[in-house]
């Protein structure tokens, strides 16, 4: 967004609570790599130039990538500037920060979708003797006591963490609710290559049947690894992870699981096969069948005949519970009435109801790829165009025009 605003000569600042790439530096576990291949992080005027386009960036590489981009575009970043409140003021906004206040005519909320772990209410009933972690506090298996671990949630985070904890010698039980299974590689190409090529990632928010639903679909069950491994439930079962249904509660020292595991897996297999059908159709229609491997289908997810419905935490020596149950944005500093009844910012493709306010980086904000680094470019181009026309309109029609820019230090 900063690059797009610069291109339009719109005076702006980027307020960063810590350092550039702060959440990548401070809120990620050690082994995490980006889920998208190197070639796919395309920012306006900036892309991958190394010799491993199909590799996946480690966290230090991701941090370096973002830091370098900030330098290349000379982004006007104010680091160690924590925003403490944003309020409407006149035809603009008053922004209080740990480094003084600002007044601006427009605000772009780009603080991310994953600020806080989303932990279900049943967490309150976890017995005190059990250690609990979230993906934000988790770093590596060495942090955990010896003994069993219950990982709750089987999307990208839960499956990756379950795998490395199991490999550390701590037996993992994985509670599986709704999830989206995809192979890392299909017909010799990365799944993200297919989704990009076939236009799946470019689908727009105003073209899908049910955008509320689309925005709540869990993250793809993917991992980035040098071997391009698929980390699906079958892969986890093979290394000894025990699959159980969605965690629904605790009673008498027992974790209780839903009896819906089989259907959750069936839904996910069906959804994956619909995606693969679409990819195959695209490949045929676009003359790719000769350039890639033949179409095939993956084994259905194996579910044992009667998965356990309960787990006696003491008897089964569960020492740790890790909540991989999603994240939510932290908008506690936003004091503008733009929230829906579930506390989400109301917006139309990133254009927030409050005039001059914009949102970036949330799942399916404007496109299926909106939450990817690769999705920022198109969204920023669209939203900066909207922002520029909003300012133009204000310049000619409002008394605010004499400020002469989009912000003014108080």
């Amino acid at each position, binding site marked *: 967004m900063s690059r797009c605003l610069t291109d339009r000569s719109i005076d702006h600042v980027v307020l960063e609570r810590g350092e550039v790439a702060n959440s990548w530096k401070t809120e990620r576990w050690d082994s995490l790599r980006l889920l998208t291949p190197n070639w796919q992080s395309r920012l306006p005027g900036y892309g991958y130039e190394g010799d491993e386009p199909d590799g996946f960036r480690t966290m230090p590489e991701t941090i370096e990538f973002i830091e370098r981009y900030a330098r290349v575009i000379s982004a006007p970043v104010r680091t160690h500037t924590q925003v403490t409140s944003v309020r409407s003021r006149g035809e603009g906004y008053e922004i209080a920060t740990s480094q003084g206040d600002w007044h601006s005519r427009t605000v772009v909320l780009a603080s991310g979708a994953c600020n806080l772990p989303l932990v279900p209410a049943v967490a309150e009933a976890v017995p005190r003797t059990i250690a609990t972690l979230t993906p934000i506090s988790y770093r590596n298996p060495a942090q955990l006591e010896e003994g069993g671990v219950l990982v709750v949630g089987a999307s990208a985070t839960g499956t990756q963490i379950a795998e490395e904890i199991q490999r550390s010698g701590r037996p993992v039980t994985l509670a599986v609710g709704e999830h989206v299974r995809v192979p890392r590689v299909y017909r010799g190409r990365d799944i993200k290559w297919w989704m990009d090529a076939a236009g799946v990632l470019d689908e727009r928010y105003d073209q899908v049947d049910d955008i509320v639903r689309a925005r709540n679909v869990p993250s793809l069950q993917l991992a980035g690894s040098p071997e391009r491994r698929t980390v699906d439930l079958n892969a986890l079962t093979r290394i000894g992870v025990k699959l159980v*249904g969605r965690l629904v509660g605790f009673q008498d020292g027992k974790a209780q699981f839903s009896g*819906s595991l089989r259907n959750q897996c069936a839904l996910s297999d069906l959804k994956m096969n619909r995606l693969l059908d679409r990819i195959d159709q695209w490949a045929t229609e676009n003359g790719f069948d000769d350039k890639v491997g033949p179409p095939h289908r993956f084994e259905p997810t194996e579910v044992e005949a009667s998965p356990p419905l309960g787990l006696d935490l003491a008897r089964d020596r569960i020492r740790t519970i890790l909540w991989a149950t999603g994240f939510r944005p932290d908008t506690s500093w936003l004091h503008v009435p733009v929230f829906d009844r579930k506390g989400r910012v109301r917006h139309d493709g990133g254009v927030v109801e409050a005039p001059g306010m914009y949102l970036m980086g949330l799942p399916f904000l404007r496109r299926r790829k909106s939450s990817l680094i690769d999705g920022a470019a198109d969204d920023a181009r669209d939203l900066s165009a909207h922002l520029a026309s909003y300012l133009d309109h204000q310049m000619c029609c409002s008394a605010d025009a004499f400020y002469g820019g989009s912000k003014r230090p108080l």
Partner: protein
Amino acid sequence: MATTKTPVDNGVNVQALLGAREALREAPEGAQFKWRATCKWVYGTHSRSTIKRFFGLGQEQEHKTEFTFETDHPEIFASEDKAATPVELVLAGLAGCLTAGVASVAQMREIQLRSVSATLEAGMDIQGILGIDSDVRNGFDGIKVTYHIDADATPKEIEAIVAQSQKRSAVYDIITNPTNVTVEVV
């Protein structure tokens, strides 16, 4: 030869359901329902339950007629077998709920159903209810539902309808997840 496509009709008013969904998204308080039944003991293990009134869309509602469901136990339980067992009614409830879901999802996806039948079987070790072994639960140890569906659809589409029906089924949820039950005597 030109063919005309007959509109899909499974007897489900999808437009009304979609309309209700939109309306209730705007006014979620209307979505709060209360389902009710009353039950009178007849004799022995025989009881009679009636269902008439419920609450929803912000007000008291009622069925067009009062429905009656009797329950009893079979003769091998030394009962008179005047009616099905309560656990069999649970299976009927699950089948009714999933099958209504199949019809609705098929209608939504514009798939014409020709026939749908389901067979249900639930295992139970009655050492639980007889108090012989406290390690054995009272309820089912599992339920198997088998559908036979004839429809204008591929096997994969039919599988997807049945999976979606489970995902949206109230009785499936009630059976697969714990529910707090409060029983009082007044």
